[in-house]
Every structure is written in structure tokens, then in C-alpha cells.
């Protein structure tokens, strides 16, 4: 295999993988703190894309304003979802919470279909991201450079919140013992809402870059990246944010390499993630970073 070909695929894989990682942050934060698989996370990402789309198209905002507004709106959506649907079932059996999450996921998808229509919409990629550089014989789209960079910025931001702020300390406390944290006078529900907000904003950023990569969006676009991001989160050890990022990268590279090296299996691309998930849960259920896995 040629080196340039391999490098080219690796670059693509890293770009795709950092998107998975970005979306996985939300999964892993929410799971780490309240042990809920937020089924609707991929759909939250989809809503983020639509917010950005309408920001650019209908309110003719500059793209960066629109993206920032979309992230804020998605964070608000995350909080609404938490307060409206998950807070009432917080003390119910975990399966009830999971079913609620499935319901929220379908609600967002179908509201999307009703409000935005099922027809895919073209996503206007800002000129800055649509350029293609040629470096040493490699074709490098600007987006492929920007995605990992922005991902790194957001990842550091999230890590900063978690490890260096008071809110972050509260999050880590809740993940260890929610009741004790409450007794210590922490407003647990507020902290959980903040978690949803941060995770949703990260998902919106990931979603917008996803939308620029395949420049179109539709109300069901969140399903597959959502599932894959979840796999990335499990791969990295759920509850661990750096792990989620690594899991995302691994998944992205594995997927791209499968298609590049065995093009005849390209149709099975979406099955790779689940294959990996099943293997991980069978042989190393704690994930790569090895945090304890609650059953």
C-alpha cells in the first residue's frame, strides 16, 4: 500500500473519529453522572444542525454567530429535555429512564420531520471550511484540519470545566454518590442540567461539522452518528471523557480503513461499530481506559 494513500485515509479517519469523539462526550458525561444512556443524544445533535442551518439561512447571521447561537440553543434544548423528561423519572428504575430516553429520541426525530420536513436540506459550508489544501501530494480539505483542532479546543474546555471548576467538582461528586452530594448542599438537579447543557453543546458542535462534511441535513441524520458515538464512549470506558475521545478516534480510523482496504465490504461500514461494541463488551467490558463498569 502506498504511504500517501495510507496517510490520506488516516487523516480522514482522524477527522471522522474526532466527530464521533465530540458527540461521545455528551453520552459519557451524562452516563457517568446519572447512569442514563441518553438515547436522544444523536437527535439533539440533529437539532443543533437545524439551529445552525436556520441561523444562516433565515436570519442571515454570519456563520460563526450562527454556530455559536446553535450551540447555545442546543444547550437549552438539553436542559429542557432533562427537566421535562428525565427529572421526573430520576428515581424510577433505570429501565424506565431508558424507555423515556427512547421516547424523547423518537419525539425529537418526529418533531423534526413535522417541522423541518423529511427532505434533506443542503447545508451551506462557509468558504473557510470548504477549501482543499494540497500538502506533499495529499489532498487535505480544510474541514479535515479544522475538525480535530476545534475538537481539541472543545475537549480542553470540557476537561477544564470538569477538573478546574466548582461545578465540575460537583459533577464528579455526583457520579460517585448522588445522595451524599445532595446532603453536602449541592443543588444536584442544577448540576445535572449543566451536564446536559455541556454535552448537548458539544454534540451541536460535532453535528455542525458533521453537516459540513456531508453537506446536507435531515431529521433522521442523528441516529447513526448517535449510536456510533455511544459505541465510542463505551470503547473508551464510559464515564471517561478522554477515553470517549480516544474511542471516537479509534472507531473513525477503523471505519475509514475498512472502507479503504476492503471496498467490497463498504456496505457493512455501519456494522463495524456494533461489531466492535459487542467484542468490547465481551472481552474488555471496562473499555480502553479501564474505569469501573456499573452493570
Amino acid at each position, binding site marked *: 500500500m502506498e504511504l500517501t494513500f495510507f496517510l490520506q485515509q488516516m487523516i480522514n479517519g482522524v477527522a471522522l473519529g474526532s466527530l464521533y469523539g465530540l458527540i461521545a462526550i455528551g453520552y459519557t458525561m451524562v452516563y457517568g453522572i446519572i447512569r442514563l*444512556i441518553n438515547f436522544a443524544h444523536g437527535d439533539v445533535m440533529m437539532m443543533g444542525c437545524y439551529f445552525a442551518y436556520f441561523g444562516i439561512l433565515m436570519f442571515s447571521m454570519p456563520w460563526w454567530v450562527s454556530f455559536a447561537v446553535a450551540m447555545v440553543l442546543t444547550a437549552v434544548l438539553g436542559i429542557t429535555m432533562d427537566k421535562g423528561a428525565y427529572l421526573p*423519572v430520576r428515581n424510577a428504575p433505570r*429501565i424506565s429512564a*431508558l424507555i423515556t430516553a427512547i421516547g424523547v429520541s423518537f419525539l425529537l426525530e418526529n418533531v423534526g420531520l*413535522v417541522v423541518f420536513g423529511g427532505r434533506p436540506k443542503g447545508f451551506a459550508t462557509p468558504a473557510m471550511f470548504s477549501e482543499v489544501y494540497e500538502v506533499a501530494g495529499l489532498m487535505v480539505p480544510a474541514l479535515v484540519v479544522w475538525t480535530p483542532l476545534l475538537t481539541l479546543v472543545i475537549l480542553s474546555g470540557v476537561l477544564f470545566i470538569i477538573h478546574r471548576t466548582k461545578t465540575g467538582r460537583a459533577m464528579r461528586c455526583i457520579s460517585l454518590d448522588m445522595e451524599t452530594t445532595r446532603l453536602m448542599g449541592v443543588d444536584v438537579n442544577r448540576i445535572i442540567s449543566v451536564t446536559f447543557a455541556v454535552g448537548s453543546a458539544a454534540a451541536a458542535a460535532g453535528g455542525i461539522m458533521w453537516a459540513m462534511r456531508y453537506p446536507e441535513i435531515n431529521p433522521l441524520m442523528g441516529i447513526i452518528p448517535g449510536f456510533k458515538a455511544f459505541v465510542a464512549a463505551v470503547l473508551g470506558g464510559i464515564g471517561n471523557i478522554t477515553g470517549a475521545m480516544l474511542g471516537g478516534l479509534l472507531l473513525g480510523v477503523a471505519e475509514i480503513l475498512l472502507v479503504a482496504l476492503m471496498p467490497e465490504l463498504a456496505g457493512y461500514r*455501519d*456494522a463495524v461499530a456494533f461489531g466492535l461494541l*459487542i467484542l468490547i463488551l465481551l472481552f474488555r467490558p471496562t473499555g480502553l481506559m479501564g474505569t469501573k463498569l456499573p452493570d
Partner: protein
Amino acid sequence: MDPNANRNALLSVLGTMLVLAMVHLAGSHGTEYQIRILNNIAIFIILAVSYNLINGVTGQFSLAPNAFVALGAYTSSLLTLTPAEKEISFIIEPCIWPLSVITTPFIVSLVAAGLVSALLAFAMGFPVFRTRGDYLAIVTLGFGEVVRVIANNTQSITNGPLGLKGIAEHTTLWWSWGFAIVTIFLVARLIRSSYGMAMKAIKYDEAAAEAVGINTYWHKMLAFTTSGFFQGIGGGLLAHLITTISPTLFTFFLTFNLLIIIVMGGLGSTTGAVLGAFLFTWGGEWLRFVDEPMDLGFTEIPGIPGMRMVIFSCILIFIMIFARHGIMRTREFSWNWLCGKLGIGGRLR
């Protein structure tokens, strides 16, 4: 021993005959639309009752019924399609050898569909039951998705995204309701047996069940495989009702519908699953008005296609928040209960 056992058995036979008489009446007097709805209800009963066995009774939150329904639908359709029909359908790649020449009667294809699905469930059970709780949910979801991806890509077996067309419309009310009754009867018997007791024990406390000597692994496998068997048969009936199948029919959406049904009826109650299937199918038809334009006399409200699913999603969330136990909780219908209510032959209690 229940002193009313004889009476109850008699009532069960009478009840079954009553249902069959209604099926006969509906078949000879009902409109095509009504018959279609009744067929749908029966198939949903089969799918929901068997789904409830693993999710509600055994408490293992599987999200893979779409995989078994898909496999059942494909198996039975491939078996009933004639070689000539297959040649017409498979335009991109011809059908592989043994399938391309086999044609079997409907009943054989249904049983085969059940067996193949049960086999898949059995094989899937080995990895799946190493996990628990929401991980089990995600792994089964993954398997469901993998089955769909395989159906999309094995052009020479499933005809890929094109799907299978021109499947004979074998499913009549007799078939669908016949199988529905058999499924309810067998699953209810299984739940009442010692195996069923063990399954319930696993649901309430797996560690305790293990401690009293129940082999939890194999009881989960039994529930999962049985469930897969009936879901395969349901899939076969479904394929021969709608006559055209493709992988898009068997997405997570199908699982979602079944989930609403069993949650609405009450997770763990077979009676609830049956009621849920009725309510969901009938309610779904009734709610069609929200998708269609409404004429209020003075003004017309344009219909909003897709609104029905929004409502169903809200219903699921509301049930979870306000009525987590569904209609039946884990209670079951029994003749003793009915007779007690009616004040007849109250030898019990």
C-alpha cells in the same frame, strides 16, 4: 389445585370459540379495511406477547425484535416465492442455489421462519446475556442494526435494498388469529410453569434467583429463544400480509412500536400486551385524522403528516412519567377474577 380448573378450562375453550366466531363474522362481513386492521392487531399480538416474555417477564431489556421479525419475514417469503418469481425479483444478482429452487407451502415456511429466528436468538443469546441492564439493551440494538445491514448487503439472498416483491397474500384472519391464540396460550402456559416462575425471579432479583439455584443464564436463553421463535412466525405472517418487504421495514422503528405496546399494557403482563396491541393498532388508525386535513365546516385545518408519531412518542414519555406500570401492571386476566367480579360461582376466595 384450583377448584375451578374445569370451569376455567371450559371457559377458555368457549372464549376461543367466541374469538373464532368473531373472526369468521369479520371475515365474511367486514370490509377490506377492517380485515386489514384485524390482521394487524393479530400480528401485533403475536409480536408483543412474545416480546413481553423477554422484556417484561424475564426483565431483560432486549431491543432486537426487529431482527427476528426481519429474519422470519425473509425466511418465509423466500420459501413461498416460486423459482420463477424469484428470477424476476432478483435482477441485480441471481438468488443463491438452494433458495432459488425451493418452494414450500405457507405453513411450512412459517414454521421454518420461527425455527430460523429461534436459532438466531439462541446464537445471539451467548454474547448478549453476558451483559446486563442498559448494556444488554444497546448490544441487542446493535444486533438488530447488524441484521438490517446484512439484509441490505447480501444481494443474492435478500435482494438487498430492493427487497422482495410479489409475496403471495397468504395471511388471512384465520392464520393470523389462529397463531395469535396459539401464541397467547403457549406463552401464558410457559409463564405459569416453573420455568416462568424462574424467569420472574430473574426479573425481580437476579442475584437472589441465582442463590436459590436457578440457572439464570439458561432461563434467559429459554425466554429469548421462545420469544425469537414467535417473532419469526409473526414476521412471516406480516410478510404474507403486506406482500412486499425490504430492509427499511425492519428498522428500530418496529421495535419502538412494540415497546410502546408492551409498556402501555404493562411490562410483564401478557394480558397487557394483548390490550396494548389492540389499543396501539386501533388508536393508530383512529389518530389518522391528525395526519389528514380536517374540515371544521367554516375552515379547514391542513393535516400534518407525521403528527401521529409525535403523539405516540409523547404517549410513551407520559406513560413513563405518570403511569410507569401501564394498564395491567403485572397482573393477568383470569377467569377466576372475571367470575368474582360478576359474582358467579364464587367458590374461590
